[in-house]
Every structure is written in structure tokens, then in C-alpha cells.
């Protein structure tokens, strides 16, 4: 598949002394965390442990109750650094597939012929070249999430934050979309929040389990080989068992 976007020199993301409280409860206290540049980092943890909150803090969309520093490479400014892909596809129902993909450019008044061309090429690359003028309501769940993936890529940001983007899909569509995402965002710094240890083992260069209150990060898990991985490797199965064990302990 052709590479339309390159993520050369994607920065690492450094969280330093990050604290966050919500309704009087301390979710993070003096948390230090490094997300390696150009790699997939996966966060696992029980519901309510703050996985999505951590993504929101990094994206800059959540600031109330936050203290600490978040750096992208050497830069403290979050603006223009991150793209967001959520569990829901968040397609705007009044826009065609093409215009949904161009949503960021439309919002910033940056639509150009070149962007439209890139958008169409990317849609073709994910097998949706025939749907550019369709409305989201006419698409299946898997197709909609592919559009959301292309919209995320079109932002051309070095850091991609993914909040359980594949969890609502059926098993086969999920694997196809995981492969597609792994291929298309190669080289970007990706932080993927997931409930599924197997998904983390398929896609992640580094995996962390979030535990405790205030939330801490467990020891890093480094699966062997390059993602997307086949899960028939015995080493991966053993890691899966250990991750499950850790998750069961945290609940």
C-alpha cells in the first residue's frame, strides 16, 4: 500500500509530575511517564482507572484539575501535536465521507486541492474510494471506522491518540482495521488505550497496565517482533496470560 503521509521524527511524549483530580478524587498524583517516539504504546487497565483521561490530558482538551508538564519532544505546546481517534467514529452525519475526512481542514479553513487529492487517495487506500460522496448513515460500522482512521491520518499530526477505536467492531473487521492502522500510521507516536490485552499484544511496541488509586503504571511489557503480530507465538500467549493476571489483580 502506498504511503501518503510520513511521520519522520515523531517526538516522544514526556509526562512529568502530572497530577489530576476530579470531583475531589485524585486520579493521578505526580505521574511520570515517557511515550517513546515513533512507536505504539498501549495502555491497559480496568474501567475508570483514567486511561481516557490521560489521553485527554495529552491532547490538551482537559485542563481543569490538571497540574504538571507534558512535552512533545522539547515542546510544551500541545496545539497541533495530536490527532484523536475515539471508540465512536464521530462522523458528522450531514457531511459526505470526503468532507468528514476533511473535517479538520474545513474547521481551520485550510481545504485545498492537494488536501482533497490526498483524502481521496487515502480513502482509496482503505478501500473506500467508491464512497467519497456517500453519507455516513449508508456505511457499515467497519467502513465508518475506516473513514475515522483516514480523518485521523489527514490531520498529519506526529502523535496519534486512540481511545479504544476498534472495540465496537466484530472480530474479523477489528483485525483488518488493526492491520490497516498499523500500516498507515507507521512511524507516528501512537498511544492506544484498550481493554483487550490481545489487541495490545498485536499492535503495541510497549504495553503498560494501569493500576491503583491514584493510578500508577505497571512495568513495561515488550512483546517480541514487529506489530502487527500474529498471536500464535507461544511467547505472546504467555504474555497474554501474565497481562490477564495483572488485570484481574487490579479489578
Amino acid at each position: 500500500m502506498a504511503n501518503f503521509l510520513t511521520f519522520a521524527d515523531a517526538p516522544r511524549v514526556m509526562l512529568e509530575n502530572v497530577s489530576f483530580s476530579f470531583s475531589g478524587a485524585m486520579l493521578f498524583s505526580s505521574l511520570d511517564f515517557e511515550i517513546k517516539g515513533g512507536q505504539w504504546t498501549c495502555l491497559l487497565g480496568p474501567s475508570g482507572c483514567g486511561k481516557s483521561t490521560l489521553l485527554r490530558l495529552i491532547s490538551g482538551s482537559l485542563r481543569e484539575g490538571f497540574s504538571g508538564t507534558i512535552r512533545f519532544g522539547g515542546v510544551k505546546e500541545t496545539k497541533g501535536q495530536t490527532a484523536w481517534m475515539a471508540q465512536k467514529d464521530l462522523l458528522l452525519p450531514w457531511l459526505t465521507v470526503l468532507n468528514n475526512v476533511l473535517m479538520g481542514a474545513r474547521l481551520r479553513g485550510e481545504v485545498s486541492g492537494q488536501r482533497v487529492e490526498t483524502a481521496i487517495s487515502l480513502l482509496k487506500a482503505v478501500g473506500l474510494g467508491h464512497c467519497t460522496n456517500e453519507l455516513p448513515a449508508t456505511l457499515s460500522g467497519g467502513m465508518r471506522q475506516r473513514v475515522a482512521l483516514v480523518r485521523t491520518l489527514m490531520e498529519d499530526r506526529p502523535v496519534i491518540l486512540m481511545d479504544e477505536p476498534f472495540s465496537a467492531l466484530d472480530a474479523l473487521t477489528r483485525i483488518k482495521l488493526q492491520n490497516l492502522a498499523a500500516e498507515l500510521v507507521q512511524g507516528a507516536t501512537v498511544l492506544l488505550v484498550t481493554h483487550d490485552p490481545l489487541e495490545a499484544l498485536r499492535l503495541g511496541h510497549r504495553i503498560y497496565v494501569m493500576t491503583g488509586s491514584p493510578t500508577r503504571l505497571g512495568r513495561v511489557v515488550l512483546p517480541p517482533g514487529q506489530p502487527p503480530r500474529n498471536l500464535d507465538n507461544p511467547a505472546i500467549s504467555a504474555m497474554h496470560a501474565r497481562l490477564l493476571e495483572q488485570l484481574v489483580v487490579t479489578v
Partner: protein
Amino acid sequence: MIFLRLSVISIGLILIWQVVVYLTGSPPYILPGPLPVAKALVAKWETLWFHAWITIAEIVAGLVIGSLLGATSALIMMASRSLKRWLLPVFVISQAVPVFALAPLLVLWLGYGMGSKITMAVLIIFFPVTAAFYDGLRRTEPEWLELGRVMNASPSAILYHIRIPAALPAFASGLRVATAVAPIGAIVGEWVGSSAGLGFYMLHANARMQTDLMFAALALLVTVALILYFLVDWMMKKIVYWQIEE
């Protein structure tokens, strides 16, 4: 299908009407049957149509002005919380005063022409449109807004590209309600003081005990109101093409 349903309902209502006339034995000046009313409608068609056009113009002008004012008010309330705190009580007070009570004053201030009737229609239309559109603007999917912010969109771009389109289905619902109640404003205004319009013509016929003509004017008013409602509904379905249909 909708025309078939409407035809069946109309025929059913006319049959019930005829049965009531037959069973009660009411004299024609109290309750005329469907046939005398139809005859009066045909005999006075030109006069009725002249008055109907005036009422239609008042309703349509009220709808256009009321909707624009309602949409603008909702946007102002959305844009500024402090303005909202001042405006909202004013809107509620405007609805607490019955429009029937205001009608004589409006006629006194704006005269017997169309101005007072259009104002009455605007007063009735304004609130459902404002309330529905404001509600729609407020209830925009929070994750769409968050996505917009992560994409570095300005608040005005988020309003224009996300909030307003997302609120259009709610606006359409408000406009449908407004269209259904708009004739009330125009007709009440015509009753209180006017020299033309279906409301005026009904009063005129009533004073002369021409009950069949009153019913003919009423039938025309209902037809006009239904056509307007379905026209607005059709337009909203075309414009807000993404709204969920059950």
C-alpha cells in the same frame, strides 16, 4: 400514502359530522351539514380565496420573521451565558402573557392592517423555535466538540461547522410546532380588529347568521394550515436530510 391517509381521515370526519347533524336534528344556522357548507364554499369561492390569501400572507410572514428571530435569540443565548441569564426570563414572560390579551393592544398600536396580525403570529412562533433550537445547540454531542478542539478549531468554526448543523433537527422540530400554531396568532389578530382575512370573514358571517359560510371559511383555514404544515415538513426533510426518521 400520506394522501391516502389524509383522504380517509377527511372522509371519516365528514361522515361523523353528517351523523351528528342527523342525530341532533340541529337547524342549519346552528350546525349546517357538510353539503350546505360545500355549496357555500363553491358559491363564495372568490371572496373566500381573497381573504385566505391575506391570512396566508400573515402566517408566512410571521413564520419567516418568528423563525429568524427565534434562531438569532438561540444563537445569542448560546454565545453568551450572561446574555442568556437576561434574555431567558424575558422570553418566559413573553409566553406567560396570553396572546389573546395582547391582541387589542397590538391592534391599537399597529393598526388594523397586517402588521398587528404578523406580530401576533411572530409572538406565537418565536418561543417554540427559540426553545427547540437553543436546546439543540446545547445538546451537541460533546465528543464532536472535543474532536473539533483537538483539531484546533476556533469557537466560531465549531459553532458554524458543528453546533449549528447538529442543532438543525431540533430547529426543524420547533419550526414544525410553530407552523402548526401560527394560524392561531393571525386569526386571533383578525378577530380583534381587521378588515380582511379568514378570521375577519368568519366574524362577518357569524354576525349575519351565515353559519355555512363560517364553516366554509374554517374548512379553508384548516386546509391552508395543513398544506403549510406539510410544506414546511417536506422542506425540513430536504434541508435537514440527515435527521433520524423513526
